[in-house]
């Protein structure tokens, strides 16, 4: 038979329900060992075509006696006869999308399923065309992010849609979150109107990073020098790593707000009272409160001040100790010569993506402080501009995506209320600002924030609580759970949510070889000839 290889028949539907998915009996010609959870299949109903994903693979037999007195399978003849007849494989498939047979519904594209295919409908392995039909082909707004598991087809993600919501990338440490994020950042840079502000805690996105194998991996600035600006908190470290930076960020005392301190309560080891005292000090001294608090005073003077503000002596000492940790951060200066927020906004307005490197200041105090502070002020600017634009009917500010790592530190239920990030996650795109959250402990993130995330892309997770929190509120979560738990430890991910029509397990495209750089830069609007030549050296 000259049947198209891409239309490989797997078996037929034998039972099932809409809620639980359908059972598929495998044909004897199909080896159960070739099946894998997460693979994408189509079911040819009599009137409609269903798309679904394999979520469970199991063994069946017609006669229970076979399990008690197993046949002599050492004999290949008997083994071959029994395979697929008395003993057979079954698949559990969760149909998620359906496409009608008539022309109208073909134009509408795939719709969510509201029924199941009829008995004995043929189940095929999805072809390249099917995947294209569901996820769309690579075009002006769709970006090739990888291949569906065990397929050569290009899986594309609609990045215009993607950036409209806050999104999350999850996975245990070492599962390829960083690589996936790099790919998505490039995608957003090329295919969406949005600009990115990346808080790059581990100096991985802007300039060279190191893969787990120890190879150097190019960063965004190296691939797209004209579209990316690298800001740094640690000029010396950046120089050391031969990074071409565009701006050295310094933060003034007066830019730190009481809310920033309450966020750092745990990391600075502050008491509840100390964080409350901050607000009183802010009220008393205004913007210069931090400098004033840390200023050495005579004990008499201090006592008078504490009495006035009704702050206990030990609370004050606790606060001072905490604040001096902040003060010691080298990028914190009493009166910085430059305004980091203004510089970032200028770059973002020009459509340049900004990556903020933290250099050596990788400790969580610096990261939380800086990320929260800058985001808050940038967000405030955006809010103001957006409201103005709406009132005056002028152009709205460029959509902004803020990328944060170790998100559970900002978005855990205890502090979520105080950080700007939970506001951004909740208010979504109202003010054209969304989040890209990268985290390895999604269970640490406030469930309210999690539920607001549009698209979630997750690499392998094995902690039960993490899996539950990522999949909370997703339909067919039990099926997805088995897929998620069986992802390979590296370079495999599961995407679901707003920007993908149905959940899909995929292998992210290659990132790190000369060929991959060429492919990334060769497409889209970015990258000049000269940039490319340099890359191939």
């Amino acid at each position, binding site marked *: 038979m000259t049947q198209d290889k891409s239309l490989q028949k797997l078996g037929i539907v034998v039972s099932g329900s809409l809620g639980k998915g359908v059972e598929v009996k495998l044909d*004897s010609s199909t080896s159960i060992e070739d099946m894998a959870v997460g693979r994408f299949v189509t079911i040819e109903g009599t009137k409609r075509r269903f798309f679904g994903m394999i979520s469970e693979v199991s063994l069946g037999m017609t*006669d229970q006696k076979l399990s008690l*007195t197993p046949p002599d399978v050492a004999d290949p*003849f008997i083994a071959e006869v029994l395979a697929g*007849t*008395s003993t057979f494989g079954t698949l559990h498939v969760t149909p998620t999308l359906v496409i009608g047979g008539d022309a109208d519904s073909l134009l509408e594209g795939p719709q969510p399923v509201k029924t199941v295919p009829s008995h004995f409908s043929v189940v095929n392995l999805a072809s390249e065309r099917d995947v294209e039909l569901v996820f769309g082909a690579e075009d002006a707004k769709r970006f090739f992010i990888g291949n569906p598991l065990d397929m050569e087809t290009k899986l594309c993600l609609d990045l215009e849609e993607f950036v409209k919501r806050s999104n999350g990338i999850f996975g245990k440490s070492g599962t390829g979150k960083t690589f996936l994020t790099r790919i998505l950042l490039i995608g957003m840079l090329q295919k969406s109107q949005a600009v990115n502000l990346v808080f790059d805690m581990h100096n991985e996105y802007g300039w060279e990073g190191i893969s787990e194998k120890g190879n150097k991996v190019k960063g965004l600035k190296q691939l797209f020098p004209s579209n990316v600006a690298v800001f740094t908190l640690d000029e010396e470290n950046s120089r050391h790593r031969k990074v071409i930076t565009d701006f050295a960020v310094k933060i003034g005392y007066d830019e730190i707000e009481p809310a920033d301190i309450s966020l750092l309560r745990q990391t600075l080891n502050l008491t509840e009272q100390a964080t409350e005292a901050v607000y009183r000090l802010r009220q008393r001294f205004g913007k210069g409160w931090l400098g004033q608090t840390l200023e050495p005073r005579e004990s008499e003077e201090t006592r008078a001040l504490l009495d006035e503000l009704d702050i206990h002596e030990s609370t004050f000492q606790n606060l001072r100790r905490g604040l001096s940790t902040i003060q010691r951060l080298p990028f914190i200066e009493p009166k910085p010569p430059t305004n980091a927020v203004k510089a970032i906004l200028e770059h973002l307005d020009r459509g340049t993506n900004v990556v903020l490197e933290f250099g050596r200041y990788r400790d969580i105090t610096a990261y939380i402080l800086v990320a929260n502070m800058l985001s808050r002020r940038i967000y405030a600017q955006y809010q103001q501009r957006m409201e103005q634009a709406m009132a005056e009917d002028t152009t709205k500010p460029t959509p902004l995506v803020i990328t944060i790592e170790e998100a559970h530190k900002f978005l855990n239920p205890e502090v979520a209320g105080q950080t700007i990030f939970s506001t951004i996650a909740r208010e979504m795109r109202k003010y054209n600002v969304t989040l890209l959250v990268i985290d390895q402990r999604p269970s640490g993130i406030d469930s309210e924030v999690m539920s607001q995330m549009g698209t979630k892309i997750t690499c392998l997770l094995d902690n039960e609580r993490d899996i539950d929190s990522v999949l909370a509120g997703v339909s067919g979560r039990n099926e997805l759970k088995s897929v998620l738990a069986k992802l390979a430890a590296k370079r495999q991910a599961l995407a679901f949510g707003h920007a993908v029509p149905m959940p899909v397990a995929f292998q992210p495209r290659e990132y790190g070889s000369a060929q991959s750089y060429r492919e990334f830069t060769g497409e889209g609007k970015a990258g000049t000839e000269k940039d490319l030549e340099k890359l191939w050296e």
Partner: protein
Amino acid sequence: MPEKERVGEVIEASTTAFTAQCYELYEIPPLGSLVKTGDSSAQLYAIVYNAATTSLEPGRRPIARGKDETSEEAIYSSSPQLTKLLRSEFGAVVVGHKEGDKLYHHLPPQPARIHSFVYQCTPAEVMEFGQSFGFLNILLNANLPVPAEELVSASLRQMSRAHKDPRAFLVAAGKELAILLSGNLNQLNAILGRLNPLS
């Protein structure tokens, strides 16, 4: 149809089976082989399930004659009348029929007629007939003096010889049997054991 091997003539017939007498003593088609009878407009296909060689007269039993002979052949050569006093018969169970060009794997509307000639099927006919395994069900359910598993395995072994890839044929037949006998694992195992092309 002179090119086909004529093996006998129907002497007893019913809807489900017929008995034929061989023209030559001992020239019986093998157990499980496919034979056919009827004219070109309507042919019956049947599978040999039983054979017997008896005396022409039912009441007269043959007697032992070889005491003074050196070999078995010598018995027949010294008493040439023996080949005329004994006869070989075989029974065949009807498993399908052909009307015009169309082959059906179920019982014919009419039984065979007495004195119809019975032919051994050619390999091409066997292959054509073996494209569908509908006959297995008839064999399994026929109430015959031979055990069904013996007959089924013998007929499949016979048919497989006509195929280019006997193993593939037997595997396909085995799968069909596995479905038919899904509730009777012992019988299935017995047949598969007899079908195994290696043993």
